[in-house]
């Protein structure tokens, strides 16, 4: 079964190892969130069953326990998605500042609805359920790990154009 961890890259494994150092040896599963994050990152933003199985093997956890974690947290994608994950905050503060226009603009520009990915696999507009805690800069969005605040449709165009 150890071969199954081979799908994790050297870099992912060393990252998991770093996290494992922070927890007692018999509590390996404490590193599951960090491990899944690293695994998702190596795979352009989403997890596959093989990756989750590899994490399970690596951390001595039942596979289903890893599936449970991955499917519970909204920051993990378990279906293929575009490699840039765009989350537009639509909670109350951002909404008052015009986040609806931003979502509408994004959807129109990319030709997809929230929750979908572009055909070229470049962009994914995530259904963002929660406030992203940047109310003073609303409307705002997060692309991959980065926050972009005080958005206007023009600014959104600029930001997207700069992405690979």
């Amino acid at each position, binding site marked *: 079964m150890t071969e199954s961890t081979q799908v994790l890259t050297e870099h992912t494994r060393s990252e998991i190892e770093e996290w494992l150092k922070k927890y007692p040896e018999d509590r390996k599963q404490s590193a599951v969130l960090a491990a899944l994050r690293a695994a998702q990152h190596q795979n352009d933003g989403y997890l596959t*069953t093989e990756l989750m199985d590899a994490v399970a093997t690596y951390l001595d956890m*039942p*596979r*289903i*326990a890893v*599936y*449970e974690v991955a*499917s*519970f*947290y*909204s920051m993990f994608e378990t279906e293929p998605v575009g490699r840039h994950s765009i989350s537009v905050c639509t909670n109350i503060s951002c909404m008052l500042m015009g986040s609806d226009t931003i979502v509408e603009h994004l959807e129109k520009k990319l030709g997809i609805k929230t929750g979908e990915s572009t055909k070229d696999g470049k962009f994914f507009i995530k259904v963002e359920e929660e406030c992203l805690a940047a109310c003073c800069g609303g409307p705002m969005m997060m692309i991959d790990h980065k926050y972009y605040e005080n958005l206007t449709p023009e600014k959104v165009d600029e930001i997207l154009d700069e992405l690979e």
Partner: protein
Amino acid sequence: MSEDKITIEVDGQTFSANKGQMLIEVTDANDIYVPRFCYHNKLTIAANCRMCLVEVEKAPKALPACATPVMEGMKVKTKSKAAIAAQKAVMEFLLINHPLDCPICDQGGECELQDLAMGYGQDVSRYQERKRVVKDKNIGPLIQTDLTRCIHCTRCVRFGEEIAGLREMGATGRGENTQIGTYIEKSVTSEMSGNVIDLCPVGALTSKPFRYSARTWELVQKEAVAPHDSVGSNIHVHVKANKVKRVVPAINESINEVWLSDRDRFSYEAVNSEDRLNKPMVKDNGTWHEVDWETALEVVSNSLQVLIDSNDTEQIGAIASASSTLEELYLLQKYIRAIGSNNIDSRLKQSDFSDQDDAPAFPYLGQSIAEFDNLQATLLIGSNVRKEQPIINHRLRKAVLHGATVSVLNSVDYDFNFPVKAKTIVAPDMIPLELASILKAVIEISNRDVDTQIKQSIDKATADENHKAIAAQLLDADDAIVLLGNIASSHPQFSLLRSLAGLIAELSNSKLGYLSENANTSGAWLAGAVPHRLTGCKQTDAGMNTQEMLKARLKAYILMGVEPELDCYDSRIAREAMKNADFVVSLTAFRSDEMNEYADVLLPISVFTETSGTYINNEGTKQSFAGAVTPLAEARPAWKVLRVLGNYFELEGFDYQSSTDVLDEAMKQIGSIEGDNSSSWKLSGSINNSSNGLQRITETPMNMIDSISRRADSLQKTSDVSDGAIHINSALAEKNKLANDDSAKVEQDDNSVTLKVIIDERVADDCVLIQSAHPEQINLGASFGEIRIAKS
């Protein structure tokens, strides 16, 4: 103790309770009903269904009885306005998403949700929105999912983690999208998986074989004993219109608690199998004719009478399955001995009988099944206990979770569902040396004095750290046991293994136990269905054992519940003996092509649900049961067949009115059943220093154990069946240039067959694992010994 006791008041009554107990345990113990879905007394507390909310004085809100520890002076109201209002509110939430498909739901009639909805539900739903729908997943041939009905109590999830020891189901997703399931499309593989059907309080997990075949209120419940392992799990057989519809566990805390293995739960399908023999049949010049019982029995008596008249009764051999009842085995041995032969045996998979005179009265477990919970150390020899005796394995697992250690000596690295302390995987012919080394370690550490002859015999062995660790575990424990499993008892040097294990147990103050194979192995020994002992362990001139009877190619065989080519130690010799015999009569519930070929008379007998009878399990508990249904067509209970056969031979003492008469007579001779495995151990046979070439290992997969489980369709769709392949590790495969799925020429003695290769790293080096009871490998022969493989 008294300071641990406190007093609480529930619904105006005062009860004494233990500190730390949960409220629901106290109400349950005192017959005060509190509704619940997620709470189960064998599982940990989840407190997620909230159905058990009760009012507790001074608490601002209703509290869940399952997760509220009792406190001195606590005043609880389970049926107050506030409690009922809370329970009704929870019920309303639960019903929001529950479909109204009770009329087509198999759980209907025995559904906890349905019952409680009657008591606590509203007549009208205030919910107008769409209900949630969950797509069904196929999780294998045994369990049907209807997860739209799931209320997320997580009993099945907790069962997997806590009881089955194999977490296969989980709750994925979150909030309203939470789903119970396996996430990926996969079959659940636990040998105890069927228990989630009982645990599920709604119709989300139901029995796949039983599906849509009856409504629960049409079923009549009959008590019975499970026939597939030596545990004797208590079961309820559910019957409709004289047909067995399903089997569920009956609670017996000292044996199976509330659980049942899948084999015991689903084997009933074979009872209604197409292979069932309906009528007595006689072969005449190679063609089979259905005849009446009289004609069939006349043919039997005439054919055997010829041998009796010519003083050739030594040429008659009786081979019986140890899954037969005590009454059947007693009568068969009485009959065969009355006509003048001691050739009777029920030890089908054994090959070394050399110390049978020193064997205990019956292969005793060494302790009671319940005592497994308290064990501190176990040495398991030649056993895949998890698949062979799932309930014993469950008990053993419980002990391990409480801190017990288990060491394993096997030829295949079986997957245990608990941590194993020390593991030694060697070829079968090296097991004696390993045991001798452990024995040596025990002697060294304990400093006990032993016979010089014993010392000399284990001279070649050297105790390394591993052996010493195992020895120390046994010696350090106050309660330890050395267990011989099914693979040990069919080992060609069984008597040597037994003595070594016995000495290890004796010198380490441990118990010695046998994990015997069949439901009535103990009963077979006590009834005298062994060639060297009469009923009640009385010595007699030994007749032939199974192996001798088959090797001797007798003129006549009487078979009872046996398919020799599938059930015996040496399948090839068994088949040849049958084909070569002048006369074979088979008392059998099923027909097979093989049987059609070698038998001369087929007498249809009842299966376990159709006969009254008695099993004695491995701890020595005698359990009698009545037939749940009348026998199929013209099949008859085997005890009746044997009684009438006795009458045909005008033998004395065959005038029983009921199976109870037979039991009474047998028990009078058996007396009280007391297990005792002690012996004055001698070491006979040589301890090999190095392995002899390539070795065959034979295991019997869980669902291939007897003619019933082999015909249970759903069990046959699981992975616990024979695959007709050779299992070798990659080192051996490389050596022979074999890869997965290749065909290999497999040779044993002068016989060869071609079998598929499966690379299986669990198998010891230079060993070939073959699963028994598969038609492809019958021609090979003995279960153990040298074997050769090559690419074909």
